């Protein structure tokens, strides 16, 4: 068999799919004007990229640990709301940084506690009640301290009216800086901050004791670590120092941040949403998913429940208003030189729209989002192909038991991948927000798209996640476009116009057709 034949045989499905998609695409654009199909194509890419940011994590998590994380879309939504808050109300965000870092300090010090408590011999009663006692003490301390900790509060309703104007004014410095909130008259900041730190430490100790109780004999991760965990200690001290610094310099930092333009706020929000997602993901994996690895049905019930809780939590904090997210200011230019007709113009005038082949295309939604999607696609692919972690993940997707038998702590890799997947979804929420807007329904509708995309592309295949997301995005946008243009069908007087409810229906239809022909999706592996 020649090289060519072998290659053809291996990638047959892929080539046929690409060919079919090209033909479909050509058929779809035949009746359209150039500017129409260009814009539809780019919109499809944009929707595909947003879908992919969620689908990739979902598929990696399912492939590696067989967990269908139905809460994945909810993390997208949470990312959008958190990112929105950072961009629109950075003062509140800065107020919240110290307690989060200080509690985080207690949590990351868990390995240190395990190391220290290993040599302590405790009676049965102490082992039984000790962890609960520490958790309770920590919780009470934290609750009391946080109740007296000042956070800037505001009425979300204001932003339902005109968030763009509001943040525009803030960006221009017209909006008066909100007056900083302080501690109540009879509350000592020292006690509150001390309470938060001690509360976090106590909770960390409680969790460490739980671990020790459930996992006796191994004494910490790996059991052979006789050295104190220096990494955890350094990270903990770093978080402590960071939290205290932000607390002390709260007002100057807030002022500086209000002076930044929205592009920088977006960059900050990018890191924050990624971090929030990673933190939420690791906490969720360690505390809730881990005990249920053997019980698939319970996992689905748990993650579905969590997604409902997430929605309610967002409603409780941000209210029922729908928000719009302002774009980063470098994609906001209008006036002279816009819409840009060349790349040089685009960079020079930072136009919000670009003119491509006669169509006006929005820079952020239809150029930046697809580009970012491609960057993430390549980054994750390199991570999977070129690093030891990626090697472990690829091997673990096939047989995680064997990976463990090679002496690799698979559970830790599970946590890491889960955290990164959730982080990516949360980051996707920020990126997608200017295009999708913010509603509490965001997560559910996106999850549906993700599931369809993965069913089409193949549930555990990384390229499949990309291909499926792309197909779903393009198909939806083309159907929407044809809803405006109408399709000329022979023997019909009127052109047929697909109504909006038909849009999700077509993707489901495509999924059904593909699953009938290829039960494992386009690039899925036969199990």
């Amino acid at each position, binding site marked *: 068999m020649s090289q060519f034949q072998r290659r053809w045989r291996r990638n047959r499905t892929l080539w046929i799919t690409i060919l079919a998609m090209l033909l479909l695409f050509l058929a779809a654009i035949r009746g359209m004007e150039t500017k129409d199909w260009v814009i539809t194509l780019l919109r499809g890419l944009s929707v595909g990229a947003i879908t992919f940011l969620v689908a990739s994590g979902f598929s990696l998590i399912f492939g590696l640990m067989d967990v269908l994380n139905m809460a994945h879309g909810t993390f997208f939504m949470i990312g959008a709301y958190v990112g929105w808050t950072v961009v629109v109300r950075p003062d509140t965000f800065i107020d919240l940084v110290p307690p989060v870092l200080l509690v985080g300090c207690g949590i990351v010090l868990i390995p240190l506690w395990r190391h220290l408590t290993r040599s302590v011999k405790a009676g049965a009663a102490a082992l039984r009640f000790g962890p609960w006692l520490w958790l309770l003490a920590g919780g009470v301390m934290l609750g009391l301290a946080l109740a007296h900790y000042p956070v800037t509060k505001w009425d979300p309703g204001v932003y339902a009216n005109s968030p763009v104007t509001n943040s525009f004014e803030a960006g221009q410095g017209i909006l008066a800086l909100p007056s900083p909130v302080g501690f109540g008259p009879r509350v000592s900041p020292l006690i509150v901050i001390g309470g938060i730190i001690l509360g976090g430490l106590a909770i960390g100790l409680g969790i460490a004791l739980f671990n020790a109780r459930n996992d006796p*004999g*191994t004494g910490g991760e790996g059991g052979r670590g006789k050295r104190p965990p220096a990494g955890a200690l350094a990270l903990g001290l770093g978080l402590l120092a960071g939290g205290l610094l932000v607390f002390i310099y709260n007002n100057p930092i807030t002022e500086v941040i209000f002076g930044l333009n929205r592009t920088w706020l977006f960059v900050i929000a990018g890191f924050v949403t990624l971090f929030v997602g990673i933190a939420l993901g690791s906490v969720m994996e360690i505390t809730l998913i881990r005990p249920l690895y053997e019980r698939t049905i319970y996992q689905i019930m748990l993650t579905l429940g969590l997604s409902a809780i997430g929605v309610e939590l967002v409603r409780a904090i941000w209210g029922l208003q729908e928000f719009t997210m302002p774009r980063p200011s470098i994609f906001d230019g209008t006036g002279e030189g816009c819409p840009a007709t060349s790349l040089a113009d685009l960079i020079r005038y930072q136009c919000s729209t670009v003119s491509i082949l006669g169509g006006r295309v929005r820079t952020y939604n239809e150029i930046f989002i697809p580009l970012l999607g491609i960057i993430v696609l390549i980054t994750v692919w390199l991570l999977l192909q070129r690093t030891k972690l990626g090697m472990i993940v690829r091997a673990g997707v*096939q047989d995680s038991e064997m990976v*463990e038998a*090679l002496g690799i702590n698979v559970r830790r890799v599970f946590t890491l991948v889960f955290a990164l997947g959730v982080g990516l979804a949360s980051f996707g929420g920020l990126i997608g927000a200017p295009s999708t807007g913010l509603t509490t329904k965001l997560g559910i509708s996106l999850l549906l798209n993700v599931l369809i995309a993965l069913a089409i592309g193949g549930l555990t295949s990384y390229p499949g996640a990309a291909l499926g997301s792309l197909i779903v995005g393009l198909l939806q946008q083309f159907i929407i476009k044809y809803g405006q243009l109408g399709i000329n069908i022979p023997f019909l007087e009127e052109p047929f116009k697909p109504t909006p409810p038909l849009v999700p229906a077509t993707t489901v239809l495509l999924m059904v057709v593909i699953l009938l022909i290829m039960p494992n999706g386009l690039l899925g592996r036969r199990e």
Partner: protein
Amino acid sequence: MDRLLAVHDIHTFIGQFHILQGVSLDVPPGSRVALLGRNGAGKTTTLKSILGLTPPRKGRVVFNGEEIQGRRSFDIAAMGIGYVPEHRAIFRDLSVEENLKLAERAKGDLDRKDDFIFELFPDLKRFLRLRGNQLSGGQQQMLAIARALVPDNRLLLIDEPTEGLAPILIEQLIEAIMQLSAQTTILLVEQNFVVASHLAEEYVIIEEGRSVKAGRMEDLVHDQETIRRYLEAA
């Protein structure tokens, strides 16, 4: 110390099924021990229980003087136990090189051992860049064994190495395993009694989840009564 591995009366459950109902065995350092018994007797489960993949609920497993039952598998493996599972569970989507690299416990393990490994299995060196699923069955089996040789393992658990292989490959494999045993201790499961009798010096017979007989292989070869009772198809 006269035993590298000692298993004392372990009981293992898979779901509700009481698979191992008292298996005991000793593996002296430097020896080759074969686990014999009919299909479904619990040989594979015994290997998995030693490694903690199916943790025993009762009983003790002592490796190198330390009790290891109840520890996590990666921890047990890292103490120096290599595992070659049945059905050649190599990683299909990873290249041969990646399969070997993944088994490194310390950076540079593969560089240190590659001369030895490729001398034993020259085919692997030629196909370093191929993916696991592009190898033939025999090559996959060699890769599975080679993978266990990358780190310095003191004990190899080998499950059905010759299953489904052509006779000529079986001969090659026997030779390779014999060469290995100069360096490590081997506990293997083997259905094919002729192969097992060539490979192992000692045997342990498992019947319905219990270890029923152990001794020297050379005695077993002449013990038609035992062979008929425990090993021949019922």
